[in-house]
């Protein structure tokens, strides 16, 4: 076998091995998207009920609560950025980080200091590499977040939010989340949302008039207990959506990698075939040339 042909065959073998890996990752992600989507769906009744309750309290009580009243001069804002732990998901993590950068730039333009809270190894590495300050970070659960993880993250955020200037933790006046919204299998968009102080979006508000509520024990205490859970639910929902988006992004990235491998194998096969044919042609012409030379040599000696 000629050297050229051997090189082509070797490259084809390695591309085929890579294709097997990317194909496997594609299938794994595809099966996990479905599960992640179901988890988003399962967590939504809780989120809807909680949003309904929070908007009821926020609308119908005159109690001012630190979690609902906007601070007049905002000095520091917390930004929670949710990214993946692992790569191989195309632009997924980078898109979220970019969206976060955009939000941070906007906040800084308003003269607000930013405290970065990061979820996922990708964003942590990005911030470390650029020597940016990280207020807190969590890794290891981006593809399958549990409610306990959301509670852990929210606790740190709420602590920062409720602490005043006298305590040791630097307080924040606003809380934003940057996550990737799972719109469909094909579309996932990074979004930045403000969580605290409370802004009940019109889109999330349930239809119709809100009933006049009685509060037990009283509106203030209900709010005290309700709002941390609201933050937890928001963080949890953001994490679940991000997880679903991560799997979808990975599936798409791996699908195009598999397609590319197919393409590459096809063109390498063509090249290998051409090389083999060229070898054969050369051998034939060598034999014919040799025979001719022999024939003319023996003809000359007679």
């Amino acid at each position, binding site marked *: 076998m000629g050297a050229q042909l051997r090189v082509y065959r070797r490259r084809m073998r390695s591309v085929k091995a890579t294709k097997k890996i990317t194909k496997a990752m594609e299938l794994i992600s595809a099966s996990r998207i479905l599960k992640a989507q179901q*988890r988003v769906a*399962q*967590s939504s*009744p*809780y989120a809807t*009920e*909680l949003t*309904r*309750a929070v908007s*009821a*309290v926020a609308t119908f009580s005159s109690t001012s609560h630190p979690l609902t009243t906007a601070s007049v001069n905002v000095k520091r804002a917390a930004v929670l950025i949710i990214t993946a732990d692992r790569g191989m998901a195309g632009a997924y993590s980078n898109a979220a980080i970019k969206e976060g950068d955009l939000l941070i730039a906007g906040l800084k333009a308003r003269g607000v200091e930013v405290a970065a809270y990061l979820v996922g190894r990708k964003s942590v590495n990005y911030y470390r590499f650029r020597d940016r300050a990280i207020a807190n970070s969590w890794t290891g659960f981006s593809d399958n977040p549990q*409610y306990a993880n*959301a509670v852990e993250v929210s606790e740190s955020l709420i602590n920062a939010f409720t602490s005043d200037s006298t305590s040791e933790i630097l307080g924040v006046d606003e809380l934003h989340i940057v996550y990737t919204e799972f719109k469909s299998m094909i579309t996932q968009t990074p979004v930045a949302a403000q969580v605290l102080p409370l802004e009940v979006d019109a889109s999330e508000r349930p239809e119709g008039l809100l*009933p*006049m*509520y*009685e*509060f*037990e*024990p009283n509106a203030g*205490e*209900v709010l005290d*207990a*309700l709002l941390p*859970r609201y933050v*937890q*639910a928001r963080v*949890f929902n953001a994490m679940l959506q991000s997880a679903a988006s991560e799997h979808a992004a990975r599936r798409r990235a791996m699908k195009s990698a598999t397609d590319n491998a197919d393409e590459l194998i096809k063109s390498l096969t063509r090249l290998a075939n051409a090389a083999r044919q060229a070898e054969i042609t050369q051998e034939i012409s060598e034999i014919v040339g040799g025979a001719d030379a022999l024939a003319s040599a023996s003809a000359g000696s007679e």
Partner: protein
Amino acid sequence: MSNLTVEVVSPEKRVWSGEATMVSARTLEGDLGILPDHAPLLGVLVDGQVVVKAADGSVNEFTINGGFISVSNNRVSILGESA
């Protein structure tokens, strides 16, 4: 008499939903029973049992670790931290 539409939900999933004739739960202020046509209410629950008497006569008990109950227009939602 109309029935209550009850939903018991935890952050991870919907635990139970259906029609019920009575719901009882323990709030910060004490035990609370809810029958149809109860006034709109929002209460903080403490750790304990929530009992739902379903319309078909069966009695369902859930152990709740902190949460909320919200009642409006014969819709009862119980939001448990874990249920």
